[in-house]
């Protein structure tokens, strides 16, 4: 058996590493893989066309955009921000744990764009986290402030990644379904999203306990001296 078709995989990795247009990388890799496996050029294009057509259900999910857009027009993001604002007054650790839960739950319900670095972290979560830490631990060094802001951003990422996969109509779930189906293994989106739940719980436990420890450590190592 020849190993040449594996060059297609190498092309994907190299193309992404070189920051070429990802769609172009993927299609070139598909064409190369087909050719190297001994298919005729036109047969490869046809195979790609059939595969694209068979997987249309993945892109169907964009029909939700008019709904989300309309709600944003009427202040959905502002509403999410005022919900986050109600966390004011909590300690740093509790504030970020609550935001982690908020981000995971809303992402799991398909509202992944009401949070985010531009939408909630920079305007709200990061400044609130800094204020909460200053309240508990007194003056903070510049380095500690940076760590707190970075931790706020990290909390948003962890909440999003390990929440969104519970929503069954998210692209990653449908991509898994598509790849398995084309290899002859039928799966349902609900099965896949159910199996994302254990990792989501682990993410909450691991990151949540780190947040509380981070808060305590700031108190002990507080270089700024109290009030």
């Amino acid at each position: 058996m020849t190993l040449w078709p594996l060059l297609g995989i190498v092309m994907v990795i190299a193309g992404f590493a070189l920051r070429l247009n990802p769609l172009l990388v993927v299609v070139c890799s598909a064409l190369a893989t087909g050719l190297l496996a001994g298919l005729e050029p036109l047969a490869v294009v046809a195979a790609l066309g059939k595969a694209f057509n068979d997987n249309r259900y993945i892109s169907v999910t964009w029909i939700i955009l008019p709904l989300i857009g309309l709600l944003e027009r009427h202040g959905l993001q502002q509403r999410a921000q005022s919900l986050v604002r109600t966390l004011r007054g909590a300690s740093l650790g509790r504030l970020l744990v609550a935001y982690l839960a908020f981000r995971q739950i809303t992402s799991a319900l398909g509202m992944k764009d009401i949070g985010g670095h531009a939408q909630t972290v920079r305007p709200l979560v990061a400044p609130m986290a800094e204020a909460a830490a200053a309240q508990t631990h007194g003056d903070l060094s510049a380095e500690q402030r940076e760590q707190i802001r970075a931790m706020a951003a990290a909390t948003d990422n962890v909440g999003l990644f390990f929440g969104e996969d519970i929503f069954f109509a998210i692209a990653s779930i449908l991509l898994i379904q598509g790849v398995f189906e084309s290899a002859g293994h039928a799966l349902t989106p609900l099965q896949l999203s159910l199996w994302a739940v254990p990792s989501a719980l682990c993410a909450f436990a691991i990151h949540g306990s780190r947040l509380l420890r981070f808060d305590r450590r700031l108190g002990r190592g507080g270089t700024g001296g109290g009030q």
Partner: protein
Amino acid sequence: MITYAALYTLAGLVFGTWALLSLRGGRWANAAFWGLLATSFLAGDHMSDLANGALVLGLVALAASGRLRRSTPATTGPAERQDLSERLGNRLFLPALIVPLTAVCGTLAYTYTPLGRTGLLEARHETLILFGIGVVVALATTLAWLRPPPVAAAEEGGRLLDSIGWAAIMPQMLAALGAVFALAGIGPLIGGLAGSVIPPGSVLLTVVVYGLGMALFTMVMGNAFAAFPVMAAAIGIPVLVEQYGGHAAVIGAGGMLAGFCGTLLTPMAANYNIVPAALLELRDPHGVIRQQAGTALPLWVCTVAIIYVGAFVL
């Protein structure tokens, strides 16, 4: 019976509307791109495979040309949105909740009650069809409640879609890549290679290699989506599912999540890890990754353990 064909017609009409809006705004490349996608949804089943392939090449050429633009339709300003959000309150979340509720409750009702025997929905595809129904119901509710200008829904959706751009079809294209890999026999090829490297019968070791491959490829490519078809064709499907008889849903979901742990560790995922560092004015561009590492590593271990236990022990 409601099938995917009905859902595709709906999606085709939505993408077609966005193509027309782009045309009206003079964004030719956007109009052509969304127009081609609308054609795929409306007519893909009536076109030859070769014609569909040509359509794919057209989409990629437009994306690679770099001519797709954002749109800036008339919308409400920040102050107006603040007022509206205070007036409408938490009820604003309700329409968005209709969609998952319809799909999850509908699927459960359809699976566990006599409703399923009516054959109203296409078998195994009921969740996504119910998702489509949920979107239509939620949109109708929102329109009746908020009474925006008639074209607003399409324009607001178009605004979001144009900000996503060609990346909107990336997951679909990656699934197509996975299918071509399957056709080219990549699975058995790697399965053979893996078999010669990993001691035969060592399920745990194979799971670790699968999870490690997902995380490392994701770190190199900056994208778990791109890594997934590769690792699924390489180890996930041929070895873990077919050779060792593992539970396919666990291997699929767990593999993707192992990749997400990699996303937390790589500067290649700039949107998540580098852009926020700039946005938050951190002096260290890798400051966010540093804070994430302590979560990503134990979480990866947990995810690999979940794959092993869920797929082979339970």
